[in-house]
């Protein structure tokens, strides 16, 4: 096993990976931008190396600086987390050249799975159904021709990456041009390529993904499916496992399809294959996520398998010890993503200092958090603050458990989607399990938080009024700290 691992990420996923390394006795190295100087992951690691200013391009996305940090600290492997460089073939190749293990699939597999069109072609070749669409990025001139072949509604997708960026739904040929231009710009900004694919758009599909582990010696196990249908503009908000729509027969078919695609692609390490499930139970291959997913804890709670430990062992050249018959799915798990965003401002990211933080402890509830009281939430990075994952023997208890956890979770400072999440969990259609990617647009399109009750105004007034009268002239800080004066002193 590796003696030292560098985690090339920040926030909750770096905290999660650093903890997994320490549990296996591996020394850890964190990297941080100037904006993250005091964040959780920096202080959790054995060593921490600054890699540049807040701007991601010049820190977390800067391959050179990250490899310098790895060489300087003698790290034997790099875990990329998700996002940033996690699916970047150049980064994986650079690690290989520097003789540092990249904890993920080989560069060429990253290349292939990153290319949506290539992945579609592979799937078709293996006889796994795909949605009607183009296997190659379209040029502007041929867009209308393909659109007519595939039929409407049509989905425009960035070939270079997912997460909703560079995606547009087009319902009629007259909207095609404007949507294509807008999608191309967003794709270029997000993935450095404005290549766009066309694809049949399913009206109210379920988004199902299968978690797979493969080692270098041809061993592979699948660890069940996760459902991620509760999305807003292709950004996942609530995920769960197993899926209410997947019976054992379909689970096996989905799993075999996922295994075939990843084996054929020469995939190694942890990978996820995404499918769309339509109303009459047919599924279509969507794409390969060549990384550890944000929602991976759902699978860990159901199977008891620590996916990061498995990733570390596979990357260190160990064979998969886990056998398929040992993998059993127990109970139900639901995950809510806590974002620093303002649902009333069209879910625009929000910023501010975490003045007060209370992350509750409940039996059966896991909180993977990346923030600390006093931390400044900046606009530079993805607004995901933490994930709350509730497990229980059945779905309704898991939802009730998650609901309680979110109600007692307190973040004062940046506006968050905690109230929004609770309303989603309370919705009868969500409780019924009849989910689809249309759920949020259908039921929460113009959601607004309830205005504070009269009593809340009164309590606030009392706290504000009296607080002011009594304290020193300057307004009462969130935490009145004898060290305020020191705030200006930077660590040497």
């Amino acid at each position, binding site marked *: 096993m590796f003696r030292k691992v560098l985690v090339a990420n920040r926030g909750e996923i770096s905290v999660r990976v650093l903890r997994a390394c320490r549990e296996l006795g591996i020394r850890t190295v964190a990297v941080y931008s100037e904006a993250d100087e005091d964040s959780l992951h920096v202080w959790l690691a054995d060593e921490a190396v600054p890699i540049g200013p807040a701007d991601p391009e010049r820190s977390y996305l800067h391959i050179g600086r990250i490899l310098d940090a790895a060489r300087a600290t003698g790290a034997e492997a790099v875990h990329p987390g998700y996002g940033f460089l996690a699916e970047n073939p150049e980064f994986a190749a650079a690690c290989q050249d520097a003789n540092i293990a990249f904890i993920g699939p080989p560069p060429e597999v990253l290349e292939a799975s990153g290319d949506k069109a290539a992945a579609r072609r592979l799937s078709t070749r293996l006889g796994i159904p795909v949605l009607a669409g183009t296997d190659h990025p379209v040029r502007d001139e041929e867009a209308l021709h393909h659109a007519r072949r595939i039929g409407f509604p049509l989905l425009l997708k960035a070939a270079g990456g997912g997460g909703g960026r560079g995606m547009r739904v087009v319902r009629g040929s007259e909207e095609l041009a404007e949507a294509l231009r807008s999608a191309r710009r*967003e794709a270029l900004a997000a993935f450095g390529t404005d290549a766009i694919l066309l694809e049949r758009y399913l009206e109210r599909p379920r988004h199902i993904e299968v978690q797979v582990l493969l080692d270098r010696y041809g061993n592979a196990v699948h660890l069940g499916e996760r459902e991620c249908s509760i999305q807003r503009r292709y950004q996942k908000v609530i995920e769960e496992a197993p899926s209410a729509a997947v019976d054992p027969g379909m689970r096996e078919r989905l799993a075999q399809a996922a295994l075939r695609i990843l084996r054929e692609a020469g995939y190694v390490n942890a990978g996820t294959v995404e499918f769309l499930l339509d109303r009459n139970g047919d599924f279509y291959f969507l794409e390969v996520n060549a990384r550890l997913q944000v929602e991976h804890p759902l699978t860990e709670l159901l199977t008891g398998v620590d996916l990061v430990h498995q990733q570390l062992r596979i990357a260190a050249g160990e064979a998969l010890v886990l056998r398929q018959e040992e993998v059993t799915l127990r109970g139900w798990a639901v995950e809510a993503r806590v974002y620093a965003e303002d649902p009333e401002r069209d879910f625009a990211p929000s910023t501010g200092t975490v003045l007060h933080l209370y992350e509750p402890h409940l039996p059966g509830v896991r909180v993977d958090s990346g923030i600390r009281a006093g931390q400044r939430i900046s606009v530079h990075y993805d607004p995901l603050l933490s994930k709350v994952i509730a497990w229980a023997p059945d779905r309704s208890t898991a939802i009730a458990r998650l609901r309680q956890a979110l109600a*007692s979770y*307190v973040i004062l400072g940046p506006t*968050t989607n905690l109230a929004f999440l609770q309303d989603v969990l309370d919705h009868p259609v969500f409780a019924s399990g009849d989910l689809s990617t249309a759920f949020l647009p259908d039921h929460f399109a113009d959601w607004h938080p309830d205005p504070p009750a009269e009593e809340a105004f009164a309590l*606030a*007034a*009392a706290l504000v009024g009296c*607080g002011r009268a009594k304290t020193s002239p300057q307004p009462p800080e969130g935490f009145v700290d004898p060290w305020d004066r020191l705030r200006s002193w930077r660590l040497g």
Partner: protein
Amino acid sequence: MRPERFVLRWRDRAVEVEVLEESSQVRVRAAGREFLVSIRPVGPNVYATAADGRRWLVHFASEGDRHFLHLDGETHTFAREVSIRGPEPEPSGQDVRAPMPGVVTRILVQTGQVVERGEPLYVLEAMKMESVMRAPGRARVVAIRVEPGTQVAGGAAVVELERLP
């Protein structure tokens, strides 16, 4: 002790408040109602409170003139203002401000154009994500303050609207 008067605003609702400390409790007049509130600190930023016979454990923190109150599972952000400035000049002009720093990539309306509620006005790109800013209600575009492609700070006015009935 003289009662303290100020305004507490939550989004577009502003309430004039009068607060008077009386021995162990606080008399609050707000929106025509009167509350007798008792408050007891029980931990850092945590207070046992009671009003009208009901009790809440609340979390409270402040930063400058912004005050954050968490009760019954919800967090509300209040702004303290000296006096009633009247809600932003809604009846006439209303700026659709950039919610955060970013680049205004495209303006989708012209001056004078009438827009319906929800109709896209401009596109703001922040952190590689394009958010479409929409009209909060039926209005006429009064002025466009920013050229496409310019970087704006959070809260900057981009398009000014005049509400229409």
